[in-house]
């Protein structure tokens, strides 16, 4: 059994992203949004809901299911576009590899969101949102890096991810 906590669907791109809860083991508790279980999914509207097809390694667990339309949050059907950040705008840090970010127009704001990090920034315009996002990522990296031994499992995973993508300038 797989449970979808929420799903975001863009009718423009016909793509969806869902946070998925998977049972850790047979009969076990559900685990909620650990980093490695956040998978982008492809989706298309079907009668009665959103059909989700997982990409990658989870295909054997969830190949095709239809979820009720109320999983798609009101207000999420906003114009959005994806881009790859190539820098963090910080003299001390550079990105080893581009960081995927989704820009969403969200009411009066623009939100820059990283699904991999579950991190976001926002502002009145795109540049402001990206600047805010970059600042958040740098602050998160510094916050996690200062005392790595004092991190719970979730933030340990986030730090490992950040250490893969961020390099410190000499």
């Amino acid at each position: 059994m797989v449970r979808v906590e929420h799903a975001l669907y863009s009718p423009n791109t016909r793509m969806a992203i869902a946070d998925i809860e998977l049972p850790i083991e047979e009969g076990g508790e559900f685990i909620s949004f650990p980093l490695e279980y956040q998978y982008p999914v492809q989706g298309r509207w079907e009668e009665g809901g959103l059909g989700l097809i997982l990409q990658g390694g989870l295909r054997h667990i969830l190949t095709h299911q239809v979820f009720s339309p109320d999983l798609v949050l009101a207000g999420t059907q906003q114009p959005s576009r994806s881009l790859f950040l190539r820098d963090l705008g910080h003299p001390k840090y550079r990105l080893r590899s581009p960081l995927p970010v989704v820009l969403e127009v969200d009411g009066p704001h623009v939100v820059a969101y990283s699904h991999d990090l579950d991190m976001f920034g926002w502002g009145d315009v795109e540049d402001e949102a990206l600047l805010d996002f970059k600042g958040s990522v740098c602050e998160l990296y510094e916050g996690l890096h200062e005392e790595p031994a004092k991190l719970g499992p979730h933030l340990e995973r986030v730090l490992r991810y950040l250490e893969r993508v961020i390099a410190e300038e000499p």
Partner: protein
Amino acid sequence: MSLKVADVDRAFGKLQMEIRESGDKLAFFVYKGKRILSTRRSHGKGKIEGNIPHKIRTQLKLNESEFRELVQCPLDYDGYVAILKKRKIISGEDPA
């Protein structure tokens, strides 16, 4: 969903969220000396609108009713710890 910044700040206060001295964008939830989760703090003093409350909620690993309880007050620190334990974000015996 729309929230007042003051309500979110009060909720973070209930959870004893830690703010780094050198930064103001993030808050960390700390349990027994370990940083368990991080979430974004809000700008300004007005309202948080659109999907931003939803994104804060998912960073806190809460469902909608739990988040509502957190903002409206019934959910306290111990209740939040119990939810994180149920979801295996915090294990029963750790952190030491």
